[in-house]
């Protein structure tokens, strides 16, 4: 078959190109600009080469923040994915329960992020918050503003409350797309409840779960607003995840060069993980 070649078609790409340039490429380039130079304000720049990158990559502060970030993301994925699937499995498939459950489930997703942080801050205050007060009343020595363990517990609980719904809704959609014949066949084959889940529901949910894990990874890895409002990264630096640490460096200390270098490293980590994850999933898909 002969295709007509018409290079003028490239003109159609221009609007997208301009849009992407203004909302992504140009802002990113300023960051790149800062990351290779030292600035003293007044638009005075001095070339620093890769110094900031080396400094960040070797700094203990960055390693600690990255470690906290990985631990946080890992823990919330470990909780939210199984919990989300579990809730989706127990949700009704028809009747009045469906809209009720769906609305209840989407509620946390509709609340602005800083409001979530503020809510949980007040909710968890050890003296007047319902959660904090109750825990202390039950005999636990709970104070998320003072004790790192409690701060982690509260941050993770908040994230689970805020985001498990997303996993639930995606899993529920996946479950609902399974034809009844699959369940009927499993029933006739004498499959146990677990076998039905393992061999029918889980494989059929694979695509939505891939999406759920990817979304939850990205969002939790870049989390900023909620822990900032809840703990402000404290006590000390114990809940200062990458974004919080980055903002501290850029706006708190005004170390624009190292902050720019850190932004780029941060960005590449997210990009790399998503790329690897996506490719692994797609490779599996291609095999089958």
């Amino acid at each position, binding site marked *: 078959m002969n295709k007509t070649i018409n290079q003028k078609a490239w003109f159609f790409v221009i609007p997208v190109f301009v849009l992407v340039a203004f909302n992504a490429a140009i802002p990113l380039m300023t960051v790149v600009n800062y990351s290779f130079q030292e600035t003293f304000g007044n638009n005075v720049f001095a070339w620093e080469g890769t110094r900031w990158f080396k400094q960040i990559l070797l700094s203990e502060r960055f390693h600690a923040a990255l470690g906290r970030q990985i631990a946080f993301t890992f823990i919330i994925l470990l909780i939210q994915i199984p919990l989300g699937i579990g809730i989706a499995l127990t949700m009704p498939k028809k009747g009045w329960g469906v809209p009720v459950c769906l609305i209840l489930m989407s509620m946390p997703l509709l609340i602005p992020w800083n409001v979530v942080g503020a809510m949980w801050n007040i909710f968890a205050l050890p003296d007047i918050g319902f959660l904090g007060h109750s825990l202390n009343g039950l005999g636990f020595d709970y104070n998320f503003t003072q004790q790192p363990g409690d701060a982690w517990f509260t941050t993770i609980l908040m994230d689970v409350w805020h985001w498990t719904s997303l996993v639930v809704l995606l899993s529920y959609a996946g479950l609902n797309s399974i034809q009844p*014949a*699959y369940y*009927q066949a499993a029933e*006739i084959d*004498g*499959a146990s409840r677990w*076998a039905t889940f393992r061999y029918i529901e889980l*494989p059929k949910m694979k695509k939505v779960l891939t999406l759920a894990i990817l979304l939850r990874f990205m969002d939790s890895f870049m989390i900023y607003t909620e822990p900032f409002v809840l703990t402000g990264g404290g006590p000390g630096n114990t809940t200062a995840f990458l974004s919080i640490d980055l903002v501290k460096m850029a706006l708190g200390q005004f170390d624009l060069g190292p902050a720019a270098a850190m932004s780029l490293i941060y960005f590449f980590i997210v990009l790399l993980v998503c790329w690897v994850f996506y490719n692994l999933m797609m490779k599996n898909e291609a*095999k089958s």
Partner: protein
Amino acid sequence: MAKISLKDLSHSYLEKQNSKADWALREVNIDWKDGGAYALLGPSGCGKTTLLNIVSGLLKPTKGTVLFDDKDITAFSPVERDIAQIFQFPVIYDTMTVYDNLAFPLKNRKLSESDIESKVKEIAEMLELTSTLNNRASGLTADGKQKISLGRGLVRSDVNVIMFDEPLTVIDPHLKWVLRSKLKELHQKINRTMIYVTHDQTEALTFADQVVVMHEGQIVQTGTPVELFEKPKHTFVGHFIGSPGMNILPCEISNGEINFSGQKIQSHKTIKKSNFKKTQIGIRPEFINFSNSGIPVKIKRVSNTGRHKIIDTESSGGNIKILSNSSKEIPSGSAHITFNQKYTYVYGDNWIIE
């Protein structure tokens, strides 16, 4: 293996039933002999899948009982009934190999590893799946997948009945023939009761010894393909089976005489009763001949299908289709036709009058 009887079975998907239309199944009575090949034939929405799901235990009937070997099993689950069912589109376990798919029903029933292996190999051989046993099932073509579904039903030696719910819907036409003859062959080999649900008369008539024709939740006739063709008990069977279907024409009955379009017609039997709201005469296009005298018709159109000629004619009592040998000369313009008395039936309120 079992004899299956359905007694006064009715089913409705609604909580309350106000009219006849609220019932998906009405007063179904069937006796299926052990080892027979049966077909449930009817258009979409006639209740055949409902009936099948009641036999398999996926649905509990609103009224009536299901008996396997005269034992009431209405309350039993599909597993307790020991049945197999093959669905409209292939149901396979995507993440398993072909072997594991076939072994799955046996593993769930806690058979020993060696028993499972010999059974699976035997069935794979029968269905020509041996070469793909170690492949992942999701990579197969639609007919390969449907063979796996079939295999999962056949692999258990204890099943009472194997049921097919329009199993060839997603299969390519040229493979339909292959799979259908495979089914027929399997039935002869393993000699188990098989029930085949379809809306395709060719499938039903080629597969089954006995065909149950359903219409609006009721069984209208049960019989061999020949019986359904030669003597439809209900006008629905007449026009649903056969291509083209039976000519159903309005007629009048008085004093045992049948009047159609001003002519006296002889039917296969003398008619005694005549207190019907509606009386009709039924004659298949195959059993109409041209003659010098008889019912006057106008010939409107002749279409040649290769083996036959289908002639559309118009009489004063309605349109009549005639099927004739394609080598025969067809008169043009006006002609006279006669009905073969042996195959001329009279229907009162859609049911045959005998």
